[in-house]
């Protein structure tokens, strides 16, 4: 359905470019409804997402185990491209998923770890504690998350680890302005 036939596509040529226009191929899926229409697809989807929440701890555990395993492989055999990528992807997935799974502080720590992996000029020279503190903090948050008094501790832990990681990255990238610019740029992700 999504593709118009070639005769519907209009190409206007200019000196440096072409502009290609066509009738909206998806116009048929738009339906006008009364303002009083009570159907709310977003609310329906939020409800469906909430119904999955019983599985989130198990999913988070799987993600965190993957991160631990990725770093264990590095401790045993050193950094290779493949091991580096696996560690980054594991941290990156936690960064993206942990808020949805109910672990927002873990997402912040995973983001900090991603930044270290992405911007450290030589991963072999990164102090091992910087990795282990991040990973252990994520493990602790996973195990302690249900305790109300641990939530503020988790957030503080996340802030401090980010500060330590950022200070380290600013120092080791002081002669690499392109990395420094990215490190210091604000995130576009919505705040927690």
């Amino acid at each position, binding site marked *: *359905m*999504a*593709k118009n036939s070639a005769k519907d596509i209009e190409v*206007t040529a*200019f*000196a*440096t*470019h*072409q*502009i*290609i*226009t*066509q009738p*909206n*191929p*998806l116009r*048929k*899926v*738009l*339906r*006008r*409804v*009364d*303002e009083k*229409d009570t*159907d709310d*697809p*977003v*609310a*329906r*989807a*939020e*409800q*469906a*997402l909430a119904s*999955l929440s019983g599985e989130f701890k198990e*999913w988070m555990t*799987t*993600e965190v185990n993957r991160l631990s395993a990725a770093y264990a492989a590095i401790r045993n055999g050193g950094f290779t491209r493949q091991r580096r990528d696996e560690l*980054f*992807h594991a941290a*990156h*997935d936690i*960064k*993206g*998923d*942990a*808020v*949805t799974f109910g672990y927002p502080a873990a*997402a912040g720590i995973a*983001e900090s770890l991603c930044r270290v992996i992405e911007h450290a000029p030589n991963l072999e020279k990164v102090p091992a504690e910087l990795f282990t503190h991040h990973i252990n903090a994520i493990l602790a948050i996973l195990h302690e998350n249900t305790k109300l008094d641990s939530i503020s501790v988790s957030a503080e832990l996340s802030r401090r680890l980010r500060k330590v990681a950022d200070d380290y990255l600013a120092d080791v990238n002081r002669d690499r302005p392109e990395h420094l610019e*990215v490190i210091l*740029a*604000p*995130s*576009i*992700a*919505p*705040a927690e």
Partner: protein
Amino acid sequence: MFRIDFNKLRFLVCDDNPHMRRILRTLLHSFGAREVYEAEDGATALEMYSHYVPDIVITDWAMPIFDGLELAQMIRQPESKGNPYAPIIMLTGHSEKRRVTVARDAGVTEFLAKPISAKGLYQRILNVVANPRPFIKTKTYFGPDRRRNTNTAYMGPERRVGEKHEVLQQPSLLDKARSSI
């Protein structure tokens, strides 16, 4: 007020993380979609794209074999026999400004930074369905119109020459990515 008939739309979801695929599938089915095809890497997604001809592609960035960015570039081949115009929504944990720019330059239509929300996903889909942008082809780019402002004095790289300044008034991809929806 408009609603989308999701049951008439065909989606291709590409994410290497099975949990995120499950979440996306749940959200899309809740919206009313029936046809949701899933791939766990870019190569499989490209095959499925040719086979199923989806109306909308939702892809992660970081994936094995080839990533979401490369998938977007392969779909946006103006001479391809497939459909190079399908809307591509990039759903990613990457949240740096330069990433949005890189995604935009690969031909991505919408950018949605994780964490995912039902509202954010719905609004991106509504936007690509209701407000399609013209496509631009230059020596180095083929994809949705990237311009968002009417700065006639712009003299930077890739300045387009020879047309009136008819620019769609809409927020930039970066502004939309920053929004909390």
